[in-house]
């Protein structure tokens, strides 16, 4: 069966596909951490473009917006935590590069062999008029359990992230039993109990 993608869409998918992988490789090649972050963003935006060509408008927009903000935050953390954020002093910070390259290439080869040898089923049903409506109805209907689990997972992430990132909690201030009358703060004058 011929693809119902237009010639322009197929060209866009091919160009964006090459771009996404090239940007993904660039993440681990460039010296500057800011450049690495924006290379990753370029890879995400290329994938969002492919999703757009595949008629998944909502998911493409969510991917583009979410990843743009995520990479902006990541750039801040990269500059905070990397010892060579600007890449002015070329240095490699890798371990077991050959083994890692072998594992990555091995995974790629296994996947590609599977992709090109599987006899993929042909689609004989019609496409929904609006993919966003289909997703929305699934979220609020047949697949609500998935969204419930996602909600609980995100809430647990908020709690765990706050606990991990908090420098001094109430147990640091009032003792293991929370029995101290006055908080033990490095600088006095903090909020009481």
């Amino acid at each position, binding site marked *: 069966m011929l693809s119902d993608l237009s010639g322009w869409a197929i060209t866009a998918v091919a160009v964006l596909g090459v771009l996404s992988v090239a940007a*993904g490789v660039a993440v681990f090649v460039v010296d500057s951490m800011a450049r690495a972050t924006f290379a990753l963003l370029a890879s995400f935006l290329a994938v969002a473009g492919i999703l757009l060509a595949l008629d998944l408008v909502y*998911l493409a927009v969510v991917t583009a917006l979410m990843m743009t903000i995520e990479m902006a935050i990541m750039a801040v953390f990269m500059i905070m*935590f990397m010892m060579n954020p600007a890449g002015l002093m070329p240095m490699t910070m890798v371990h077991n590069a050959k083994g890692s*390259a072998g*594992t990555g290439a091995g995974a790629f080869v296994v996947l590609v062999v599977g992709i090109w040898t599987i006899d993929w089923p042909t*689609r004989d049903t019609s496409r929904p008029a609006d993919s966003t409506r289909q997703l929305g109805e699934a979220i609020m209907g047949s697949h609500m359990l998935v969204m419930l689990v996602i909600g609980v997972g995100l809430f647990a992430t908020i709690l765990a992230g706050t606990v991990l990132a908090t420098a001094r909690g109430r147990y640091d201030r009032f003792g293991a039993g929370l029995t101290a009358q006055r908080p033990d703060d490095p600088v006095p004058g903090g909020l009481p109990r």
Partner: protein
Amino acid sequence: MTAEMVLQIVLTVAAGLIGVGLFGALSQQTIVMVMMGLELVLNGVLLAGGAAWYFLAPELPDAQMLVVVALVVMAVEMAMGFAVTVAFYRARQLDMIDMASDLRG
């Protein structure tokens, strides 16, 4: 071009992203760069999920849900990864995973 061939090309791109991401996650020493490798792997999953929806089962929303789940996993990975990085740095002044090898499970 047949639909099957376009699907295979898109999935090959996804496999490329997964391979590059795996290499990065395994080879990088900095915690933040390891997270970037994991994000690239998930990027490949996003692409494969979208292609599976369009070419294999557009009448079902399941592949779209898979993409949503992958997006949420990305957000959770970022949030927890940065929280762990901050906690590590605060406790031990370290930013490389080789310095925390005593946490190996």
